[in-house]
């Protein structure tokens, strides 16, 4: 179609869409003015538009994912797997598909269960699954589904079993009431099957009506899916449950889990008996003993509630049957039947003594859910679809104190697509709202969500907000934005700036109307300021002579006078949490209250008691704090929850009120962590703070390490220098532009780097030389090309620089000392980059793509030009050992290699065959060198990708104080 016609078509289409459908035909006809072809085309397009429905409405990836997990069958009728010909699909569920197939060897029909890919990703669990399934299937017990074969098809395990005609117990239950005699018969069959399996040490773990089958022929009851629960547990409860929650399967399992399973404690044969008890109750009563409106309430009921009495059994069988049921439903495994054999025996006695069936369903008052904390429960209910319930933390030894607060419930709150958490989720002191700083493509903002609402509301005017904190009355928020401390009244208030805050590290709002803030990253004590911005004064004093470098993360005590804060110090004995007092600004004295690399949250409990919550080793811990004596009790309790690993450089992503605890599992979504290992790959140290980090470079004297790090709050890439002995770190660059690829001066006093423009802006970059102690830029020189990066600083005071202009990369020499005189060094038709001068002799190692792939080459700098290729099959990132006796580089697989170098008397190197080092892998697709060695070549500093997941979500625990009472 010509451009002109295309544009007309577009216009006609757009115009017609503005009209009601009935008027479109006329409009098109008029616009086309007799051009029938165009008219037809436009009408067809309009029809297509009307018909297209949800066409392309979801991203391709989602659709593909959906088709894989739901719509895309693994097998096809007619297909052959091993000796089986696939006939037709019998059913599909959360764990896999079941197909009817023909066993061609034996001429019989079989059922083939294919596990979905996500159930088969862990080889060890697949092996265990196969073993258990085989063992159970081979029992050849009439009440256990016979498994003929376990195999694998394209890496997906499948299970071949006898093909049954009949229906599941669930289907039977749905079809109508089950007479007591039939129920007893079914329960007896299950008990016998369980007994046989339990004797072999096999626990089902997921017994429920859905996987109990009642065969048409023979009337037998068959237990299905032994071993499957094992496999599912390989996913980890968390993910598994989440998956189920999304597929709506969760109730089926939740309702049959024994209390010990809910708590994620050890399971044994008695766990299966509990499930059987629930099923028997359900058959007899026509309703589930613990079913509640939500999964949380159901699980809570399993843990805390007694089932309503079993009425039918009561009427017909005054004691025996109802006693059996109630005994099976005991919360403590010790109080149940101790074996399936005992149970079978008891059921047999009842069956023998039974009169004819004839009971009717009864209606007892359902358990009325508590209505305390309406908002919280409303939230719990509203979160249902996205909810995740985990068992591992639920380690109560007795029921939660229901009278005091909401039921112990945990759920996960996923932020809207595109939004990630950028602060702790802050629970308001009145437990009614959560505030957070969120970050999306447009930047950071504050968001608030009330527990009784489903809406996450952005706070207008809060652009750039970070580190929010609540006022004690829960009616205002404090936060930082644009280097200022701000407050905003909720709802609807406009943010007000009340004080400067250069690089904020926490704020807290006390009862007395005073806010304490950490206004700067380093060498500043805490400030106090009244909520209206008045009376700003120091709240603590920082004495650098004591080794203290920063005071961060204040948290008020209930009196509004005392507060806790974290001290960073080069004196390890002074690192930790100290107590401050508004009317007494002093330097922290003595040892800390709590030696912790985490910040703390204070939650008032009863009386003068409070809890200090913090994170240690990735787990949330609590200590009692006596606000009367201002003392911490010694024993730390882990409350059984894992939070994001925190450090003093990273605020803890946790907050709590008396009733609600909220926390996230992770902080930095993308980043790397520095690691040092010996040449054999033994890790010597791993830097704990997850940071985006690049281009580590050890100083020639081995004492310092320069690298580019992304500073959390400002999110700006800067060059930092760490003192490797003392562990202190100095930021060398401060301008809000990215600073890239530092190299050391030969005397270890300075670093050179390239300073870029704000991302997205074009223009030249500048080569800077700055003092390594952070005292500032010494000189600036223009980049020789549009883009340049220093790669080495030679003994002669020359910077070797990658210069990229247009399409090729060359290596230039730039004088670091006089006027920045620049001239090309390697200027060939190919790309040359990452040049490093040899410590002895006059050779430069660099990367060239002359052969079509990047190879590490070396070239003489004086006399006749000679050139050698050092790497054999691709290589990059060359680094000389400081004595010149080794040349390291990275191979295409990302592994670090070393080639021995021998120098002849006239300064010519001979490179030996390279060998792989165990340290690493180094990898990363960056241009530039992502590792370095200690001067003696014994230690390798490199970056390991930080695998913390992005915090798209956080967890909310209601009634968390129950976790303290163990």
């Amino acid at each position: 179609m010509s451009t002109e016609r295309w544009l007309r078509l577009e216009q006609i289409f757009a115009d017609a869409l503005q009209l009601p459908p009935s008027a479109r035909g006329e409009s098109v006809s008029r616009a086309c003015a007799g051009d029938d072809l165009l008219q037809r085309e436009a009408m067809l397009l309009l029809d297509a538009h009307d018909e297209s429905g949800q066409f392309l409405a979801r991203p391709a990836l989602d659709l593909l994912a959906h088709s894989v997990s739901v719509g895309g069958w693994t097998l096809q009728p007619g297909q052959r797997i091993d000796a089986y010909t696939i006939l037709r699909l019998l059913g599909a569920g959360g764990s896999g598909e079941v197909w009817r197939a023909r066993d061609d060897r034996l001429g019989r029909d079989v059922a083939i269960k294919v596990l979905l890919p996500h159930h088969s990703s862990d080889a060890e669990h697949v092996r265990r699954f196969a073993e258990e399934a085989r063992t159970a299937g081979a029992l050849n017990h009439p009440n256990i589904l016979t498994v003929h074969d376990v195999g694998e098809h394209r890496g997906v395990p499948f299970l071949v079993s006898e093909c049954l005609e009949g229906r599941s117990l669930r289907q039977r239950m749905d079809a109508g009431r089950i007479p007591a005699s039939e129920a007893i018969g079914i329960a007896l069959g299950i008990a016998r099957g369980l007994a046989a399996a339990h004797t072999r040490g096999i626990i089902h773990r997921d017994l429920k009506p859905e996987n109990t089958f009642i065969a048409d022929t023979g009337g037998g009851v068959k237990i299905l899916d032994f071993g499957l629960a094992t496999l599912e547990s390989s996913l980890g409860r968390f993910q598994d449950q989440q998956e189920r929650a999304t597929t709506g399967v969760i109730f089926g399992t939740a309702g049959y889990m024994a209390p010990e399973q809910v708590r994620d404690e050890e399971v044994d044969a008695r766990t299966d008996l509990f499930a059987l008890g629930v099923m028997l109750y359900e058959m007899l009563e026509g309703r589930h003993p613990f079913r509640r409106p939500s999964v949380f309430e159901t699980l809570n009921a399993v843990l805390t509630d007694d089932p309503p009495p079993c009425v039918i059994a009561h009427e017909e069988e005054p004691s025996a049957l109802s006693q059996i049921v109630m005994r099976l439903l005991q919360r403590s495994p010790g109080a149940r039947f101790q074996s399936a054999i005992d149970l079978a025996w008891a059921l047999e006695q009842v069956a023998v003594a039974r009169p004819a069936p004839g009971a009717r369903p009864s209606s007892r008052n359902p358990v009325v859910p508590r209505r305390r904390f309406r908002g919280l429960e409303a939230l719990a209910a509203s979160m249902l679809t996205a909810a995740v319930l985990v068992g591992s933390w639920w380690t109560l030894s007795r029921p939660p104190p229901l009278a005091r607060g909401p039921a112990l419930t945990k759920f996960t709150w996923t932020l809207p697509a595109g939004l990630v958490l950028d602060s702790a989720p802050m629970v308001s002191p009145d437990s009614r709202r959560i505030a957070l700083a969120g970050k999306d493509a447009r930047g950071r903002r504050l968001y608030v969500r009330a527990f009784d609402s489903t809406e996450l509301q952005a706070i207008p005017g809060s652009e750039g907000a970070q580190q929010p904190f609540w006022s004690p009355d829960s009616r205002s928020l404090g936060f930082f934005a644009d280097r200022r401390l701000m407050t905003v009244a909720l709802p609807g208030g406009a943010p007000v700036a009340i004080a400067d805050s250069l690089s904020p590290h926490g704020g807290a709002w006390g009862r007395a109307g005073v806010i304490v803030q950490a206004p700067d990253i380093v060498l500043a004590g805490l400030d106090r300021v009244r909520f209206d911005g008045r009376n700003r004064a120091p709240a603590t004093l920082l004495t650098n002579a004591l080794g203290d470098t920063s005071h961060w993360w204040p948290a008020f005590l209930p009196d509004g006078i005392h507060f806790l804060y974290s001290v960073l110090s080069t004196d390890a004995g002074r690192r930790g949490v100290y107590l401050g007092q508004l009317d007494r600004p002093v330097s922290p004295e003595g040892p800390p209250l709590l030696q912790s690399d985490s910040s703390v949250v204070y939650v008032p409990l009863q009386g003068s008691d409070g809890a200090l919550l913090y994170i240690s080793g990735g787990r949330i811990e609590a200590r009692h704090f006596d606000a009367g004596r201002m003392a911490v009790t010694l024993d730390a309790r882990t409350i059984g929850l894992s939070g994001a690993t925190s450090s003093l450089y990273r605020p803890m992503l946790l907050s709590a009120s008396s009733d609600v605890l909220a926390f996230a599992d992770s902080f930095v979504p993308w980043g790397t962590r520095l690691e040092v290992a010996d040449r054999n790959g033994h890790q010597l140290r791993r830097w704990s703070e997850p940071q985006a980090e690049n281009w580590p470079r050890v100083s020639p004297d081995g004492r310092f390490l320069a690298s580019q790090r992304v500073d959390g709050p400002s999110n700006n890439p800067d060059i930092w220098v760490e003192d490797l002995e003392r562990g202190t770190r100095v930021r060398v660059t401060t301008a809000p532009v990215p600073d890239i690829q530092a190299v050391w001066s030969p005397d270890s006093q300075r670093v050179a780097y390239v300073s870029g423009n704000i991302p997205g802006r074009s223009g030249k970059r500048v080569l800077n030389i700055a003092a390594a102690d952070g005292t500032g830029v010494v000189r600036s020189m223009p980049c020789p090309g549009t883009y340049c990066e220093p790669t080495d600083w030679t003994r002669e005071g020359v910077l070797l620089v990658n210069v990229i202009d247009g399409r090729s990369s060359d290596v230039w020499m730039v004088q670091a000392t006089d006027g920045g005189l620049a001239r090309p060094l390697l200027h060939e038709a190919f790309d040359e980059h990452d040049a490093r001068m040899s410590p002895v002799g006059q050779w430069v190692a660099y990367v060239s793509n002359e052969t079509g792939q990047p190879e590490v080459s070396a070239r003489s700098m004086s006399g006749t030009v000679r050139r050698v290729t050092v790497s054999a099959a691709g290589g990059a990132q060359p680094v000389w050992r400081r004595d010149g006796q080794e040349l390291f580089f990275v191979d295409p697989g990302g592994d670090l290699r070393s080639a021995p170098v021998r120098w002849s008397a006239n300064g010519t190197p001979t490179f030996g065959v390279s060998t792989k080092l165990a340290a690493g892998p180094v990898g990363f697709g960056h241009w530039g060198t992502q590792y370095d060695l200690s001067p003696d070549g014994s230690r390798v500093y490199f970056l390991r990708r930080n695998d913390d997941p992005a915090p798209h979500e956080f967890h909310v625990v209601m009634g968390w104080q129950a976790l303290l009472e163990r």
Partner: protein
Amino acid sequence: MEPCDPPAGGDVTRMLRLWSVGDEQAFDRLIPLVYDELHRMALRYLAGERSHLSLQATGLVNEVCLRLLGWDQARWQNRGHFFGVSARMMRRVLVDIARRRRADRRGGSGAVRVAIDGLDLPAPQTGDDLIAVDQALEALSAEDSRKARVVELRFFGGLSVEETAETIGVSVRTVHTDWVFARAWLYRALTKDREA
């Protein structure tokens, strides 16, 4: 997660730079460098290893690209440039996965429908699949490359209307108009055979 690194050196960056200055072939050379990782992550996503709740399509694309290509935005001309590359790569990978799935199922013949309709609606009657969309998109591109890009960014790259507008450098309104037209055009292209 095991480390997964593309070939060492600056090839990725270099190819991106070349591509951004108009060297379309550079993109073809870029793909093999990052393909394995993208493919692997997409498969993990598809296998449900990543929660659908917590990781949306855009998130995956961006995560892959950030991990592979580095967070250093200074190397990107702008956000739009980044989105453009992400979407183009995701299109390649997803269509390829769809192709492989098709081949796996039928021993290399026939077509398995990857529904592109909404999930809550009845199974689509159009017989569309990702591969067909990809091909139709090529045809659309020949007529109107901007509209094809809009679809690529939104459907394969998972971008919002606003992000798409930023990437292409047009107004949100234009993206909207383009999208509505392109959707109808593609739908028609994919259903034409049925009529015939």
